[in-house]
């Protein structure tokens, strides 16, 4: 690591902290924008810097968007081996870290440093992230010929490492072994040729795209490029960004589907139940409520649900109130629940209509282990309000509305356990919510700094 150093700008006197003191050749004053030679105040050295950068396609401080992230060029290496010479630009984004932009023979690629080392997969191949890569050639000596800019490790002209490339036809892995360490970098080809270079705009150059609102100074954390000149990704690079997003979207969707599957499995496994108990009861509309014990349940799991399903046959224009009480025999504590079974039918100007159901499922949640008596207080009532209903909506109740003492036969099925479909839907919805929000933000262009 390099030591921090503070210098005073000879132009405005402002204090500037160098993050890579001793290796940074130039730095822009954050107060007045002057470019300073921090290696030596001599003008001759500035000339050497410009001479060195003349071989570079991208000047330090240039900014561009690649893969959906805006990067700033903070370092440049010119490297060579026995057969080729190429440029490597160190890109920096305070939120995304570092990347390499490699330019060789007109082809550009983006390098991402691997945090986990690929594992040997036999022969001349390695495996990384589930993919197998074959070595393209034997390691060759690679020399660093020129160094300009800031780097996060010690590098100087004349450094030599052993290097080779592993490929699987699509992506590539670069392997480099120096005196002290081995580095792996994933290389992703960037289509577009000169569009990549054009995507980066140097400090002082006009922006490539239409004007945007000025970016807040200091948002990017470096002064190399003017804060008032936001960058647009070159049109040719838009597919790169879209391809990256599409790839991530596919992976995110796959993860969400897998998670949803597991959520459903979890719900079904925990919702498993014991044997059901059935009971019958007849109530009469307009008569006092009847109270009966439907079942005695012994619940063994620490917590579980209890499901009660009530069914009936063909009553019309009536409702049945079902007040359940699950009473713990040991503590006499009661857990109450309510179910309403109702069914209505009639005819109006649109024709016949029906509403309601002859079945009602009621679920208790979080019932502790123990022995319980499930009791129900059931009563039935007729629905009858022909004056109000007829005048308000122009319809009349059906002829089956009468029958004050008509019997309603109820069948109950009591079952320990229960699957809460609402829970499953809620969790599945939450699983997909971030993807939906992301897509919505993309569609509305509200991406902020990193869209």
């Amino acid at each position, binding site marked *: 690591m390099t030591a921090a150093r503070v210098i005073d700008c000879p132009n405005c006197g402002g204090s500037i902290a160098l993050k890579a003191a001793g290796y940074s050749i130039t730095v822009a004053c954050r107060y007045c924008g002057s470019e300073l030679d921090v290696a030596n105040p001599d003008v001759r050295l500035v000339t050497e810097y410009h001479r060195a950068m003349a071989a570079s396609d991208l000047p330090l401080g240039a900014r561009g968007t690649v893969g959906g992230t805006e990067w700033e060029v903070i370092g440049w290496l010119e490297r060579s081996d026995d057969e080729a010479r190429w440029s490597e630009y160190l890109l920096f984004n305070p939120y995304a870290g570092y990347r390499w932009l490699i330019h060789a023979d007109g082809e550009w690629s983006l390098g991402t440093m691997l945090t986990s080392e690929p594992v040997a997969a036999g022969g001349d191949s390695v495996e990384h992230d589930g993919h197998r890569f074959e070595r393209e050639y034997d390691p060759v000596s690679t020399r660093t010929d020129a160094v300009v800019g800031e780097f996060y490790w010690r590098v100087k002209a004349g450094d030599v490492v052993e290097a080779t490339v592993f490929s699987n036809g699509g992506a590539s892995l670069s392997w480099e072994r120096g005196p002290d360490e081995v580095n792996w970098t994933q290389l992703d080809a960037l289509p577009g040729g000169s569009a990549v270079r054009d995507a980066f705009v140097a400090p002082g150059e006009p922006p490539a795209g239409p004007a945007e609102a000025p970016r807040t100074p200091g948002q990017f954390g470096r002064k190399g490029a003017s804060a008032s000149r936001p960058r647009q990704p070159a049109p040719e690079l838009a597919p790169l960004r879209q391809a990256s997003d599409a790839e991530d979207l596919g992976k995110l969707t796959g*993860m*969400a589907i897998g998670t949803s599957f*597991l*959520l459903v499995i979890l719900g079904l496994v925990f919702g498993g139940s014991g044997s059901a108990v059935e009971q019958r009861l007849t109530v009469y509309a307009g008569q006092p409520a009847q109270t009966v014990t439907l079942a005695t349940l012994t619940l063994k799991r620490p*917590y579980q649900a209890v499901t009660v399903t009530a069914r009936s046959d063909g009553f019309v224009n009536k409702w049945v*109130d079902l007040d359940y009480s699950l009473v713990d025999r040991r503590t006499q504590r009661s857990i109450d629940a*309510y179910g309403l079974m109702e069914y209505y039918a009639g005819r109006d100007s649109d024709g016949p209509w029906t509403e309601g159901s002859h079945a009602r499922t009621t679920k208790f949640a979080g019932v502790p282990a123990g022995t319980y008596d499930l009791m129900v207080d059931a009563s039935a009532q007729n629905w009858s309000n022909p004056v109000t209903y007829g005048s308000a909506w122009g319809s009349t109740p059906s002829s089956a509305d009468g029958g004050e003492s008509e019997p309603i036969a109820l069948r109950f099925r009591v079952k320990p356990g229960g699957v809460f479909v609402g*829970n499953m839907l809620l*969790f599945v919805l939450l699983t997909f919510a971030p993807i939906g929000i992301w897509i919505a933000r993309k569609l509305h262009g509200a991406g902020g700094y990193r869209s």
Partner: protein
Amino acid sequence: MSPRLFLFGLWCLLLLLASAAANYYAWSPFADGSRSGSSAIYGPTHK
């Protein structure tokens, strides 16, 4: 793995753990327990 995928993986893991806990305690906001019949509304509501 990109930070986006990593964070989403954490989110999925969190939901799985929350779901496992909800299932273990048989908890659900959609249960009928503790509901009172006194607030029930009777009669057809489709019009």
